[in-house]
Each structure stands twice: as structure tokens, then as C-alpha cells.
């Protein structure tokens, strides 16, 4: 179970890092945000 949370955190950081670095393509920014939503909810254990 802990491994799944570590994988979730890793993917969240990856998406967040790409969101911060992206400077031009707004479409990609939106996609990064959408990808981050379920990962963040899972990490915060919000139900």
C-alpha cells in the first residue's frame, strides 16, 4: 500500500514539475492540472 502512495506522489511531483516548467502551451498546462487532480485527492485521502 505504501508503494502505491509513493508512486502516486512521484507522478504528482512529475506533473507539477512539468506544469511549473511549461511556458507556452496552455493546452498542456490544463492537461497537467487535470492529471494532478486525482493524484492529489488520493495523496490527501480526501473522499
Amino acid at each position, binding site marked *: *500500500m505504501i508503494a*502505491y502512495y509513493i508512486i502516486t506522489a512521484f507522478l504528482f511531483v512529475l506533473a507539477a514539475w512539468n*506544469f*511549473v516548467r511549461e*511556458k507556452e502551451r*496552455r493546452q498542456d*498546462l*490544463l492537461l497537467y*492540472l*487535470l492529471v494532478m*487532480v486525482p493524484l492529489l485527492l*488520493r495523496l490527501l485521502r480526501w*473522499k
Partner: protein
Amino acid sequence: MIRDTVEKSALAAAVLGLVVWGGLPLVRHRHFDVPIVKGPGVTAVHRLSEFSPGLKGTLADTNVYVLEGREPGGKALLIGNTHSNEPEGMLAVIIFLENAVVEKGTLYVIPFFNNSGSRNTRAGDGYPLYFDVATDWGAQRFRFGNRDASPLDQWPDPDVYIHYPERQLLSYIDVRNTNRTWPGRANGPLMERVTFGAMELMRRESIDVAIDTHGAETMFPVTNCIVAPDKSVKIATLASLTVKAAEGFENHVEPSPVGFRGLSHREIGDYGPALPFLLEAPIPFLDQPTGPKTTKLLLDGKDPFLLSLSKKKKLFVPYDEGGWPLEKRVGQHLSVILEIFRQFTKKTADRPIVVRGVPRYADVVKTGVGHYLADPSKAPAGGVVMN
């Protein structure tokens, strides 16, 4: 740099707003409780976690109602909402809870067996979150759930579900399906703990008959039937023949396959003392080639695409302009359950199960399901249990 930050913050805020807007109805649905009025026969209300402590404090825990008879006799377990998108079973057992008077024997009733599933939905399929049943005193609202438990309660899913204890490989999604996780184990995934709780109840209370109520697609061959293993097939056959002769509706018997594990009609009998029966009523809402998945379709079962397929003989049940309404589905379940009790009592005279006050098929078709649902606002103090 500042412009970039402002733009990204605005975008993040917009997405957050959309998430809250889309998420709030789901949060409300997850925490919406259904009131059940304790009928004249209800003598106690327990929690399934009393039989499976691993459920305590989770949304998979659920109420177990006891209707102890005036005289001792046999014992039966009635289960509804094993699949929470098949509400005819849940409504049939609620009608038992609110109306039945047990003369001989004891009934144990679990109306929301997969409680987590009933608080889940299938958004991608456009499922409604609720449905209303018209009653004599207004409309009663019920949660419309999903076949499987919510991933909020049981996560993560495996790549393949390895059934316990038979080790058969099943689809990953079936780890959240309480009709694949029988007989369960005390420390397994949450849904195995649910089925383990029911098995423990049956073992401790020496249950004789276990009836799991479902709905199935009209295009699926195992529909409009009683599924029974060898040990229950005699009673199932007699019940099927009797309801056809006396009440005029078809409900054939399907054998429980020995090689398909995890199902209630298989494992309850193999791992416990009870005689299992699984009842299937046809529910057009679940068929794939229908119009929109509306509450109207759920309630009246009328769909033009199914009607067209029926004319081409592609369905496994008779289907005409009348559809397959909720009244017929619930009525069938009620009559078949009562008939199973009658046949069991005839066969096992020293453990009779005699129930009165429960309507049969013709009554429900004539007056509607809602006629047999009690008004929570008129119940005496302490007479309503939230589910």
C-alpha cells in the same frame, strides 16, 4: 515571469472550481442516507462489523435487521444491493423489513449489502445518482449506486483478482464486486470482509436459507431465473413451477456452475450450512443497446431499441411495449422468496419459516412498489433506521 504566474494561478483556480462544482453532488450522494421504517416484525438491528470486525469504521459496514418469529423455526438471510445498480432486490427486501410479520422462524435482512457500492456511481455511463419511488404519502428517494464498491473505500485494484481460497483468476474489477468475493476472509480486501461477515452470520446463527436478490440484462441468458447449486435445486425447481402455475410468471432455474468461483450461489453452499439461491429479475436499464440511462428507464423498463431487438428475437425474456417495470421485478422477487420459504418448510417441517404481511407479485403489479413503503415521518420515535 509575473504574467506566467498569474496565468497559471488563474488556470489552477478555474480547474479547482470545476472540481468542486463537479464533486459536490458526488459527495452529497456518498453521504445521503435512506430511511427505513422498522416494520412490525423487526426485533433487532445489528451491524455487519459485529460478525466481521475489519469492517468497523468503514463505509462498507452495513445494517443487519433481525425479524424473530413468535415461534422458533428455520432461519433465512435475505440480501439486497449486492449490486447497487440492481435496485429491485433492495426494494423487495425493504418491503419485507417494513411489512413482514414472522410467525415461525427468524429472518435476517441486509438491504444494502455492498454499502460502499451504493454510495458509488458510474459517471462514464451517465448513471443517475438517485431514483424516486412514488408512494401513497409522496416520493421516497433512494441512492442509485454501482455494481462495484467505491475505489474510495477499497484501493488499489490488483492487475488480476486471485479469488480466495480457490485461487481462480478473475477480472481485476471483481475484487470490488461482492458477488465474486464469497466466501471472503477476515483480513482480506474490504469486500472480502463484507462477504466474510455474512458467512460468519450464517455460521453462527445456523442459517438454513440464503437468498441473494439481483437484476440482470434482458440480453443476458442468466436472467429471469433462480440460480441454485445442487443442494438447493429441488426447492428452486418447486418454487419456479409453483409461481408459474399459481401466479402466471416465468422464473426458470439455472444451475450454479461449479467452476466459476466467488458467487453467492456457489460459495455460500460450499463453505457454509445454508441453502443458497440467487434471484435474477430482468432489468432493461442494464442492457447496453438502450437509449439514455434515465430514471424513467430504470423505473418503467421501456426502451425502443430493446423492443426492436425483441422483435428480432435477440432477448432472453418476453418484451413488449409494456417494458419490464419495477413493479413486475420487485413482485417477482417477493413471490419467489415466499415460495422458497414455503417449499423449504414443506421439506423441513421441523424448521418452518412462516411469514405473513408480505405482498405477492399480483399485489405489487396492481398497487405499485411504493404502496408497501412506510412513511418515515409517521413512524414512532426510534422507529426509523438510517441506511
